[in-house]
């Protein structure tokens, strides 16, 4: 009965640049109040997809709806977008830039008066409010860019490679902004090719390569689906019998541990049972592949298929 409202729906979206098919029949549903990672190698079509969402470029075919709305103009004020290529007017002060972006994002004068100091404070630029952008450090530019992006308290935040070029402090600051937004029930979509960032932040991911979806869904489910066939164990006793077990396809020694590959249809619990009967088990871990491994596996595989 209660269907989760999707913040964003892409339906069969395609975009070509000349011969290059940048985005190929992409469909995705981003649920409200989730943090969704668009992952993929450079040139996968992430930026093109985000630009189509924000309507900077138009898709050749397919439909995009934001908050159930087919036209972005209706919902622009509810969106915050931080592009990969980002800059600010060098001759304007931090305060004026925030006020200007607030104004063109549709805030009223009262809202601007309230939002600008609030965000200057949150990104720790309060003391620099009346300095010109050209007088600020690179790190401060980045902070100001975050503030510009969220000055309108967007319900949907879209970030293109937000972590690239950030120093560790600003990475933490941005993460805290994303966390806060998630806590407030807002939706965050960001693209990255740095997998451990996505791993720490995302609820769901969309993995694309060469404009096509390779993997899509909740991160936990993806991991569990990808995980069940490698087990890492630490044992005491004679372990040579393991290779002869029917469910085992491969055994490798990694230091004091054994890494055991299981056949697809077998259960790790069966292996544990078999081990407990014969040897002393000191550690038994079902290996959860890192997103990085999944990424390398799948993207590597799809590249091989294509060539």
């Amino acid at each position: 009965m209660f269907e989760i409202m999707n913040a964003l729906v892409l339906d069969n979206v395609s975009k070509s640049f000349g011969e290059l098919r940048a985005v190929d029949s992409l469909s995705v549903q981003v649920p409200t109040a989730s943090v969704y990672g668009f992952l993929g190698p450079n040139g996968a079509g992430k930026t093109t997809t985000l630009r189509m969402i924000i309507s900077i470029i138009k898709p050749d075919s397919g439909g995009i709806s934001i908050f159930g709305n087919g036209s972005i103009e209706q919902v622009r004020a509810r969106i915050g977008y931080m592009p990969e290529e980002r800059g600010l007017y060098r001759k304007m002060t931090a305060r004026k830039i925030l006020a200007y972006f607030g104004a063109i994002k549709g805030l009223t004068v009262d809202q601007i008066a309230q939002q600008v100091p609030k965000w200057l404070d949150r990104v720790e630029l309060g003391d620099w409010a009346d300095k010109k952008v050209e007088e600020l450090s690179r790190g401060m530019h980045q902070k100001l860019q975050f503030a510009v992006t969220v000055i309108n308290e967007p319900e949907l935040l879209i970030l293109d490679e937000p972590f690239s070029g950030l120093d560790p402090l600003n990475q933490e600051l941005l993460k805290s902004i994303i966390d806060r937004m998630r806590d407030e029930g807002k939706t965050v979509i960001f693209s990255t090719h740095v997998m451990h960032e996505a791993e720490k932040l995302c609820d769901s991911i969309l993995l694309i390569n060469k404009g096509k979806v390779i993997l899509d869904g909740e991160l936990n489910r993806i991991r569990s689906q990808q995980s069940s066939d490698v087990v890492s164990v630490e044992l005491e006793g004679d372990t040579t019998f393991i290779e002869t077990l029917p469910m085992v396809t491969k055994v490798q020694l990694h230091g004091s541990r054994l890494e055991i590959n299981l056949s697809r249809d077998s259960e790790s619990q069966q292996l544990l049972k078999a081990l407990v009967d014969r040897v002393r088990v000191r550690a038994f871990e079902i290996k959860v592949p890192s997103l990085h491994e999944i990424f390398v596996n799948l993207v590597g595989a799809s590249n091989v298929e294509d060539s």
Partner: protein
Amino acid sequence: MSKILKIAQREYVETVKTKTFLIGLLLAPAITVGIIFFAHLVSRSEGGPRPPVKVAVTDLSTELSGQIERGFEKHNDSHPNRQILFQALEDSQNQAAVQERGKAGVRSGKIDAYVVIDKDILDGPGKVYFYTHKPKPANLDAFWTLERIINGLVVDQRCRLKNLSPELLAEIRSVPIERVEIGSGKDEQRLQSQTERMTGMMVPFFFMFLIYMGIMGIGQQMLSSVIEEKNSRIIEMLLSAVTPFQLMAGKILGLAGIGLTVVSLWAVTAYGAALWQGLGIEITGGLLFYFLLYYVLGFLLFSSILAGVGSVCNTLKESQNLMMPIVLVFVVPLISWYQLVQSPNGLFARVLSFIPPVTPLVMILRISAGSGVWGLEILASIVLLLAALLVTMWLAARIFRTGILMYGKRPSIREIFRWLRQS
């Protein structure tokens, strides 16, 4: 619409604050005032003494010789700074040899001019020959004076031969002319000097030049503004909040505001300067209306072109190369303004009026030249400008939309055409 206004407002405020704007704003009136002041100084002073012009004369009629020397002396008495010196040539029975010596003197630079007067100059078809060799431009005025002196002497001598008194002739020839400009009121009238006549001629040019400066000068601002946003990667931040069209329209509008501010200031300064110099310039409300109308239309048209051009370029230099052909079109009415003022309803003026980027320049020139341009023609030119403006904005918006996101290599013309075809 409110977003467009906010973009326009920022564009206006931030442009006004730049140093280049301030310099540009002040420089033009400063130069104008400077030129007027300088011209005033020059026309008052006689100028310092200039080197004398050396002239030899061979009078074959033999009746003028003495008078020529006296004529030169009379001139030298009244013009001590610009003397004409009479150089005697070595006399000889052989006239051909004398003349050869005269010409050789001119060639070698010993004398500046050599005059030979035919034998039957007084009562036949004889001529006066002025020989010069690579004359210096600085001496042209003296040669002109020389011709006038000799002309006067010949006429005087002819009078004597025919028993006419030269004084009588002068009396006959003297027709005093008084140039009077009458005003609109019944008893309003005042004398008009030659300068004022000239100023009257210059007013149309001034109006055209004002439009030209306004369009070109402020148009450059559009290029640098677009390229700044592109280079510093502000564009995409903006495009999350506004559409490319809103951005472009806002910019054009903001700079149109700048343009109006600048041109009004310039016009007021120029009008003030003219009054200060005692030049009466009559500007009707109708002319001002057309001026503003054509200026705004021309500005919008030109800055749309520049928005499109700026969006595909990465540096100002690159954009200026692209601008060259358009700038050259603007030069046509500038160099042919005199001809256009002389025949404001001629074919040339009419054709030029309907080439959209220069329409405002030519039309304001024709209208301010004050010789009844057809109302229908004005209407047609405005309709044409509007149509050109809409088409240009439509094209520019399409180029702008794609161009502002292209970093690096400038797209080829063929690529740009492909953008235009894309919906």
